[in-house]
């Protein structure tokens, strides 16, 4: 840092900018002395807690994934889904290219919907990310441009969603998170929305993250009236717990949801369980039969909805599912086959 400081000093000759640069230099030197850690990304605030939950692991119907690793840089995935009560049968082809600086991933399904993701790392700190979702249905396509910068003790992220230079519309999100002490990090996010050329909105959101040796606590406040608090605790190497509280205090409706999830690693199996205040209970058990073969059973019941008669007609799905994962590894060329088969016990309609 001293070398950089000298460079700045030799370049700036006028006395005013000299004092400014020495001030900046002093600040950066002081910051370096504090030796604060990087607070992580704004998006990844709730990552640890979400990992103990199993929202993404529940499935319905049969599914088979075949992954072929063609070379260390290229892999293709064939994915078949059928028999789901919620979605029609589908075939999905995916391809991923993993380069030294770039990462490209795309999937296309039988409806012709493309999901594309492209990352390019300019250096270790600066990453550009592009995401696109293109369908033949007009108005359903999405484009997201993202620039991520991770400093020594701060992270900056800039996002643009569906920018239109013609209409001058789009969503622009800027977030900044800074470590204040070794344990505490504070962040702010601004969302600027322009859905039509005539209307515009701006929301602010504040976060605080306190992380200890084996726990992380976060609080997020959004201007639209939501508060989200989460707490993650690692009890030992094999047991992790996460809890999350979401409170919505809008003008029309007030709502709150608290979720508790736990993850237990055993010698040959993993058990994840989750309970929330809406009465939903889910469990996933993953049993490793051999290193190449694992067996998954999931169950999901929404207790409260069974007894709610005054709300709108709704369908409740009681589902349990099984999954077999088969992994065959050759040196360098690995192949994964994952087969899911779900079975709905029944659905009740009011």
């Amino acid at each position: 840092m001293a070398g950089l400081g000298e460079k700045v000093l030799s370049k700036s000759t006028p006395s005013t900018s000299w004092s400014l640069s020495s001030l900046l230099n002093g600040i950066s030197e002081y910051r370096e002395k504090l030796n604060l850690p990087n607070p992580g990304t704004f998006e990844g605030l709730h990552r640890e807690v979400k990992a103990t939950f199993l929202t993404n692991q529940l499935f319905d119907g049969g599914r088979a994934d075949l992954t072929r690793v063609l070379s260390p840089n290229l892999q293709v995935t064939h994915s078949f889904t059928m028999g789901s009560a919620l979605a029609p049968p589908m075939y999905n082809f995916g391809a991923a290219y993993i380069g030294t600086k770039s990462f490209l991933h795309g999937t296309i399904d039988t409806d012709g919907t493309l999901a594309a993701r492209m990352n390019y790392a300019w250096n270790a700190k600066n990453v550009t990310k592009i995401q696109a979702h293109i369908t033949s249905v007009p108005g359903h396509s999405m484009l997201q441009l993202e620039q991520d910068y991770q400093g020594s003790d701060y992270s900056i992220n800039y996002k643009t969603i569906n920018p239109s230079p013609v209409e001058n519309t789009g969503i622009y999100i800027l977030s900044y998170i800074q470590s204040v002490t070794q344990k505490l990090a504070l962040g702010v996010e601004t969302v600027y929305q322009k859905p039509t050329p005539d209307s515009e909105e701006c929301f602010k959101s504040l976060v605080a993250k306190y992380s200890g040796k084996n726990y992380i606590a976060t609080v997020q406040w959004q201007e639209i009236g939501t508060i989200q608090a989460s707490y993650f605790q690692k009890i030992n190497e094999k047991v992790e717990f996460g809890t999350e509280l979401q409170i919505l205090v809008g003008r029309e409706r007030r709502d709150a949801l608290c979720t508790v999830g736990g993850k237990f690693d055993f010698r040959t199996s993993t058990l994840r369980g989750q309970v929330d205040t809406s009465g939903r209970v889910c469990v996933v058990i993953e049993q490793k039969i051999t290193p190449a073969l694992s067996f998954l059973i999931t169950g999901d019941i929404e207790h409260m909805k069974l007894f709610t008669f005054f709300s709108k007609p709704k369908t409740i799905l009681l589902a349990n599912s099984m999954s077999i994962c088969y992994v065959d590894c050759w040196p360098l060329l690995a192949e994964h086959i994952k087969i899911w088969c779900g079975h709905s016990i029944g659905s009740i309609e009011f």
Partner: protein
Amino acid sequence: MREETKEKITKAIEIAKTIVHWGFIPFILYLGFTRSNPKPSLIRMIPLAA
């Protein structure tokens, strides 16, 4: 902004969208097949083939 320019930009975006829509996956495969080391064989793309 003039109406003509607006129309031109909209049309250019539409064309770019179509190119990305149908060209992105072939582009990934092209990159993978030309830049990988060792070079993969095409037949292995098919599921369960040798």
